[in-house]
């Protein structure tokens, strides 16, 4: 489970420090030492170990593990899932944020709470919900079988579960920002004769673009990395319904260490790329 917070701007944090609030040198250094060693021990070391393990039998074995048809299929499915999920949740997220910050309606606070639901329930339960709905024994099971539609143990189920899990990311980034901005600029655009769509494109979108990109990035990272919910609905069919995280687990359980860590290194690489992009975005935002 993860929570979404506002991007941190390091420059601001330092600027706020005042002389009177500065601690003794020994305290400062020991706090820094604790933080650095904690990060090294629990984050850098494991991440490094992924690479070391993946390359433990040489680069060739690593490449071979990666070029297995099952691995390629897992990478493909992961990318497909992200490619469908992220645009969908971007649209949903913008629409939800718009509805919540721009309109007054009954059940608004309920909707705001529901947006957080995927964060607050265990991903396994999220997966189970879809099995209960679309599985052979589920509510729509008979109908789906009769019409030969496969959702559970198929890519569509994985995508559904991922959409559910990653729904909050974009909306949660936008809602506080749009609340803070208010709707006066949009009202001004409307009063100048702009249509609703034009107002959105020319006024709203430029104002929310950084937060939106940030939300999309987080949504993408989670869509590629989601394990729990996907694991329940996938069925772990090799080459068909294994996403990259599932592929890693299957290999690991079969003591195929190089295969498992080669897959893990791809995921870790994606995480690093995400972090770099995220930092670049924050830097952009801080510059403005």
């Amino acid at each position: 489970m993860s929570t979404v917070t506002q991007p941190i701007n390091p420059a601001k944090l330092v600027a706020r420090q005042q002389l009177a609030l500065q601690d003794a040198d020994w305290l400062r250094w020991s706090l820094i030492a604790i933080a650095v060693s904690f990060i090294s021990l629990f984050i850098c070391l494991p991440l490094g170990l992924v690479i070391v393990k993946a390359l433990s039998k040489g680069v060739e074995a690593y490449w071979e593990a990666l070029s297995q048809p099952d691995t390629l299929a897992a990478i493909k499915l992961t990318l497909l899932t992200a490619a469908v999920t992220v645009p969908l949740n971007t649209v949903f997220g913008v629409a939800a944020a718009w509805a919540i910050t721009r309109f007054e309606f009954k059940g608004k606070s309920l909707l705001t709470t529901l947006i957080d639901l995927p964060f607050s329930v265990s991903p396994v339960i999220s997966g189970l919900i879809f099995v209960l709905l679309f599985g052979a024994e589920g509510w729509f099971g008979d109908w789906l079988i009769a019409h030969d539609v496969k959702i559970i143990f198929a890519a569509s189920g994985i995508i559904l579960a991922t959409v559910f899990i990653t729904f909050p990311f974009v909306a949660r980034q936008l809602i506080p920002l749009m609340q803070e901005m208010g709707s006066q600029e949009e009202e001004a655009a409307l009063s100048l004769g702009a249509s609703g769509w034009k107002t959105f494109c020319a006024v709203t979108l430029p104002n929310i673009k950084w937060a939106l990109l940030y939300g999309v990035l987080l949504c993408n990272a989670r869509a590629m990395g989601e394990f729990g919910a996907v694991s329940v609905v996938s069925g772990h069919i090799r080459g068909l319904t294994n996403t990259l995280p599932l592929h890693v687990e299957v290999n690991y359980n079969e003591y195929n260490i190089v295969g498992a860590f080669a897959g893990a290194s791809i995921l870790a690489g994606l995480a690093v790329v995400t972090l770099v992009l995220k930092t670049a975005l924050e830097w952009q935002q801080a510059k403005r």
Partner: protein
Amino acid sequence: MSILLSNISKNFGTFAALDQINLEIPEGELVALLGPSGCGKTTLLRIIAGLESADRGRVLISGQDRTDHDVSQRGIGFVFQHYALFRHMTVFENVAFGLRVKSRRERPSEAIIRKKVHDLLSLVQLDWLHDRYPDQLSGGQRQRIALARALAVEPAVLLLDEPFGALDASVRKDLRQWLRNLHHDLNVTSIFVTHDQEEAMEVASQVVVLNHGRIEQQGSPSDIYDHPANAFVSRFIGQTNIFDLDEQDSDWLQTAGLSNTHQKGKIVHVRPHDIVIEKSSANSDAFVTLKDWQHLGALIRVELVKTGANGPAASVYAEMPNDQFKRLHLNKGDKVDLRIRHAHWFH
């Protein structure tokens, strides 16, 4: 263009923000909607603009019913209290926005847009800022840009929501005069909302006083000041001494020059400049003493204390020109005679 509002009502839940407002604004006027906060003046402005919809009633602009028109179709220009400039656009692009979003058929050519925007920026005397972004401008500059932006679409009516509310006192003074002059040059029917009676009296040609979602009075500034329709308007516009009368008061009122025969109600409002004071002889039975005074530029405000035969002491304020006060040779604690030249009576 003229504006006609008929029977406008608006409720927020059970709270009646506007209660059957009927208002006619002739073409070319500069009208102030004046009232305390929560009186419904901003809601009324937003209903005229189409940013808010009324529960009942019609909005007519130049004789045409625009009640069901969208804000983008009403032909109004709206200036917001906090400017609402597009923060990611330059000053030039802000002003050009209304022209650029016109449909292809109505959109002027780039050269015409360019000329028009520069003309407008010259009108608000800020052409030299055309390539700046809003956050590089001062509050007064932003408000003038917002005004130029609203004027770019040649609105039939200009609506301003507390246009000087977020500005420094000195900037506000300048901008008031400037807006008045601008309106004189352009002559576009304009309505502005304010809670500052001084601002309304100084800028507007017509003042509409609102309270609790109803119109208390409409008229020229002098009309409203000299002939307030009720106690609320009298209290809200300018300064006034308020006396709640009972039977014992008839004596001192008579001494002050207001005889009982004139009594038309239980409450008397007296403007400070309608009170004349004179030093009374040392052993007189005068009931008013001078407590203190303050300089208000050309005027002196004198604080008097009226001690009644019974009941608590009450403060009374009088205003007079500096030299007149000097001629009286008054000191703190002196007894004075008091004369009321003019008063308003209310029930």
